[in-house]
């Protein structure tokens, strides 16, 4: 049973591309046959995050316009032979595709792959409408900030009005230290407004910047806490029940000492 997952948010810069790359890779690590589709036409980034930008010959527009066969445009990942990327075009814009064309494309991809992960562009216009056209389920990414949550709420409203009922939420870039100080929204503050199920909470992590620059998704780094969070999310998307990570990291020597004595 193939599944098309669209990763969306409304707000830009909250982590859609990072999330798409990492859960796609996470699903591939678990043995599934996965294709990542970059639907951000004109502002493509997924290829950079995956470290595959030098291998692009054909892109999604070429496939849709019939300039090449689908297989020719798919780029096999450097590390996992069951992971592929269908890059976006950089020299076109989002009006170059229609929702119907996206839907047809997703149907062809479903014949070959277990999971199709679509990286949705920011916004609510044509790019968004195209990206959700062929999707079976939606993952909404937000950060714990008022503006991001406002936009996520809008997006969820639009998803619920379309065929994508029951989207799930990823809360990205959470900083537990700021939450404790009262300087950042808590997980409950966010879910109180958005009222959808959380599929994962990803801590703010420097390793994401490093991995983006290197073109190596953080899930491949055993030391990365964000990577661990994305690995858990991939498994939850496959239906497994994984307990949520303890995000509390600030263990100075004294608090470790106290814990030793049962304080």
């Amino acid at each position, binding site marked *: 049973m193939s599944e098309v997952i669209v990763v969306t948010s409304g707000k830009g810069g909250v982590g859609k591309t990072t999330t798409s790359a990492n859960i796609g890779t996470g699903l591939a690590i678990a043995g599934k046959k996965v294709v990542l589709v970059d639907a951000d036409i004109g502002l493509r980034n997924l290829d950079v995050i995956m470290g595959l930008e030098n291998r692009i010959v054909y892109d999604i527009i070429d496939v849709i316009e019939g300039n090449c066969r689908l297989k020719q445009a798919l780029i096999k990942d450097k590390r996992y032979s069951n992971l592929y990327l269908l890059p976006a075009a950089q020299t076109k814009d989002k009006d170059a595709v229609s929702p119907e064309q996206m839907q047809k494309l997703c149907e062809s991809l479903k014949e070959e792959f277990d999971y199709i992960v679509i990286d949705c562009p920011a916004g609510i216009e044509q790019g968004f409408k195209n990206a959700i056209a062929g999707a079976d389920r939606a993952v909404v990414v937000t950060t714990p900030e008022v503006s991001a949550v*406002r*936009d996520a*709420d*809008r997006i*969820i*409203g*639009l998803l*619920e009005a379309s065929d994508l009922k029951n989207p799930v939420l990823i809360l990205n870039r959470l900083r537990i230290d700021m939450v404790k100080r009262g300087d950042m929204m808590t997980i409950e503050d966010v879910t109180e*407004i958005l*009222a959808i199920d959380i599929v994962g909470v990803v801590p703010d992590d420097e390793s994401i910047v490093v991995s983006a620059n290197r073109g190596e998704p953080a899930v491949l780094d055993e030391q990365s806490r964000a990577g661990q969070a994305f690995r858990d999310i991939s498994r939850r998307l496959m239906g497994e029940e994984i307990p949520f990570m303890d995000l509390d990291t600030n263990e100075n020597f004294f608090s470790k000492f106290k814990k030793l004595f049962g304080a």
Partner: protein
Amino acid sequence: MSDNNSVILKGNKDGIVVMLDKDLEFEAIKSALYKKVTDAKKFFGNSKTSILFKGRSLTDIEENELLEIISHGSDLNIAFVSVPDTGSSINKKEEPVIQVNPQTIDDALNRVSSIQNNTIFHKGSLRSGQALRHIGSIVIIGDVNPGGEIIAEGNVIILGSLKGVVHAGCSGNYDCFVAALNLSPTQLRISDIITYIPKHMNKTYTVAPSLAYIQEKQIYIAPLV
């Protein structure tokens, strides 16, 4: 320094009136208040009351500090803070007035509920970007998230949290009201009067079921419990 009369606590039918000396420096007022409150702790007990500050204009921060002193130094359950109607440098008219007097609330409710409207019931929450308009009254069984809008020619009742924009009596009816289980709109409008809930009122006073209505072109907010 006589701190005996710099702060005087009096009770009346609306609650407790805290008379503050006009000229004394604020730090001295704080310590005098603390002493008065702790001395009277047993007398006041743990009743639910409202507080009215008189005699001196206070900034929001100063008012909050005095309220902290009262709630820490006593067992009182502060339900509301009445806004003093003395001329103060802060223009309080733009802000809603918290009404505590049960008789006034009753009168307002009798006046507003005599309006005949056709009412629609909406089940579910309104998300950001969703608007609901109706020529009668609206009842929402759910929340209104920030960015959501309710526009009614009649009354608006929200059985949930109101965090968006609400406009009751939009065609010019001052007798309409807005009620919610949690009244925290980004903006509240009744007819052509617009207001919002200032941050210092927000956390303590409107998280309980509340009703907003107009009296003499001023928005009042009253508790519903």
